[in-house]
């Protein structure tokens, strides 16, 4: 008996080119081409999709109800069954997957997007923190990640040269990813906040991702090699950094257990690690063997559109299965400071 009532697969994935700025584009203009592309890959029209779910953040858009405008890009007429999470699109995919599990939908369109370029995303993310005691101090996202990186170094789990190697490997791998923002031999750069250098931190940029899910035989009809979601789970940890061991990610490990990651080896891991040091934490939590291909897309160090970067990890893992380059992959998404909340999905191709 399968873990869940229905077999559900990622049958299509599309993403924009991720760019440092997109001043000339509204969010609707950014989203629309990617939606058209992902739907075209399946031959489905927006009106034929059973459920639509998106992820985004008003704080990046700088206005309330920002997603209401983006919905216009979907072409929701006649009216559609639709929802939105104020989270990374990976969680929108989770909501859509649950919807398909209820039997109320057989297909789902999932999309997410973010424009970080209009503001200072380091400062914007500070508004995620405890609003009474922490946020007023404005500790920014890079400073918090640096705290985690230093904790890892102090614990002997990594060092600065190992972190630099993560960044270099990511951008070298991104050479093969035409959508990536940073590609090739980009220097590690100066310290942003010690011990993190520019190359240890994600680029600031704008981008969109979209995925189509389908159930059972329909997935087989829509895609030659569907990427079956054989397990998916997400867990959150305490918010206060003082309550957590920053060198570990128990929520990732727990989500991985529930998603079945440890039941068989994986050959690919797409990890949402915006900072090089976080890859160290995630590799340990997921127990990845040395021969696992990690972030062949270049990962979040090569392109990090906020709110879409997690969904991209699922999409990239699925795309490798679609291409026949992976048999069993793990995809991971994160939210919050220092890996507070983590989602883990196992994607598998049909046995061949």
């Amino acid at each position, binding site marked *: 008996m399968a873990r869940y009532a229905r077999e559900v697969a990622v049958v299509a994935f599309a993403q924009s080119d991720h760019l440092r700025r997109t001043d000339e584009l509204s969010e609707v203009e950014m989203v629309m081409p990617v939606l058209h592309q992902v739907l075209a890959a399946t031959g489905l029209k927006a009106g034929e999709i059973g459920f639509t779910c998106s992820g985004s953040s008003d704080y990046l858009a700088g206005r309330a109800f920002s997603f209401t405008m983006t919905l216009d890009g979907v072409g929701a007429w*006649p009216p559609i069954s639709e929802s939105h999470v104020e989270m990374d699109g990976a969680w929108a995919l989770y909501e859509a997957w649950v919807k398909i599990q209820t039997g109320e939908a057989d297909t789902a369109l999932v999309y997410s997007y973010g424009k970080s370029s209009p503001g200072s995303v380091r400062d914007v993310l500070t508004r995620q923190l405890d609003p009474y005691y922490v946020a007023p101090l404005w500790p920014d996202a890079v400073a918090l990640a640096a705290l985690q990186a230093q904790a890892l170094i102090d614990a002997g789990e990594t060092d600065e040269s190992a972190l630099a190697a993560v960044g270099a490997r990511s951008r070298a791998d991104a050479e093969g990813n035409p959508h990536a923002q940073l590609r090739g031999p980009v220097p590690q750069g100066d310290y942003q906040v010690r011990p993190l250098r520019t190359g240890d931190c994600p680029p600031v940029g704008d981008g969109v991702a979209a995925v189509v899910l389908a159930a059972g035989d329909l997935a087989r009809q829509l895609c030659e090699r569907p990427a079956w979601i054989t397990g998916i789970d997400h867990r959150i940890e305490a918010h206060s950094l003082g309550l957590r061991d920053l060198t570990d990610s128990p929520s990732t490990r727990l989500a991985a257990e529930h998603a079945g990651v440890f039941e068989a080896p994986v050959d690919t891991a797409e990890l949402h690690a915006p900072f090089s040091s976080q890859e160290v934490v995630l590799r340990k939590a997921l127990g990845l063997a040395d021969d696992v291909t990690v972030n062949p897309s270049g990962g979040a160090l090569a392109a990090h559109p906020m709110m879409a970067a997690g969904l991209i990890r699922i999409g990239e893992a699925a795309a490798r299965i679609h291409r026949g380059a992976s048999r069993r992959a793990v995809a991971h998404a994160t939210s919050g400071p220092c890996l507070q909340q983590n989602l883990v999905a196992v994607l598998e191709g049909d046995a061949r």
Partner: protein
Amino acid sequence: MSKEPVAIVGIGQTKHVAARHDVSIAGLVREAAARALADAELTWADIDAVVIGKAPDFFEGVMMPELYLADALGAVGKPMLRVHTAGSVGGSTALVASNLVAARVHRTVLTLAFEKQSESNAMWGLSLPVPFQQPLLAGAGGFFAPHVRAYMRRTGAPDTVGSLVAYKDRRNALKNPYAHLHEHDITLEKVQASPMLWDPIRYSETCPSSDGACAMVLTDRAGAARSPKPAAWVHGGAMRSEPTLFAGKDFVSPQAGKDCAADVYHQAGITDPRREIDAVEMYVPFSWYEPMWLENLGFAAEGEGWKLTEAGVTELDGDLPVNPSGGVLSTNPIGASGMIRFAEAALQVRGQAGEHQVPGARRALGHAYGGGAQFFAMWLVGAEEPTS
């Protein structure tokens, strides 16, 4: 495939007020969640997942507050989802939670929605200037007033109907200990004499701005069997969305609302909502939306909704009570308002609505809408376990 039946076994609300200076945001949500758990006679350890909703983050100034609220809601080590579908979010949040149980992904789920509007200023939160986009026309009332006027012109409804709704809902609120506005000296004349804000909407025909939270515990059939109090059962639930602005959109009676209601009735086996539904908790932030939604939801023919209101059908002792709790007109913590509708519908069929109980209510509708009347979320709950 069969879905797991979903039962509501715990409901908790805060006393809604203009400003809860005595608690933090975390304190506010924990209060509602703790009450829902107490109602279900369960503990934090019994909860498998948490689904939280609220309207825009700018209303409190906290980006993605589920991160900060994880501890307060006992979510550490558990899955936590944050839903945001504008004003309909409280309803959508409950539906997402319900789907987790229906899909047998989790057995017992805590769902909660809140708004602590006193932390900031909702008007400013909605009015952040964005280049080349239309501003929201001085708050929600400015956006919706022309649509109310269109309804009046289209149906020939006399301009007294709106005040009847406000008078009824404010009187109903006096029977609900959690309602924000308790206007003990309310009279129809006072409503009618209140200042005109956005013609034809008067001050007393608008919702207040509240701090508040609402929580529910949803569980499967086995969980319901252990429940010490009667459960409410989900007989149908749906969401529908349509674009904000486009040629051909009917702002008076949006197609998405009609489709959403039709889907819910179909799931619940309802063919004549006017006869088969015993109570309605309807999202009415401006009084005229009661007759408008009566038509949109299929309780009255097009152009006839105001006649039900005028005839007293929607009064607490009428034959289709609408908003026995006092509704959004009496209590509006925006992100929670939809969930309060869903929860009040469940209270009715559990027979737990206290002084505002509709006698013998067996089936009740919870309704929410949001955005530019473009997002709809509804559920129909019953006193008995659904048969299909």
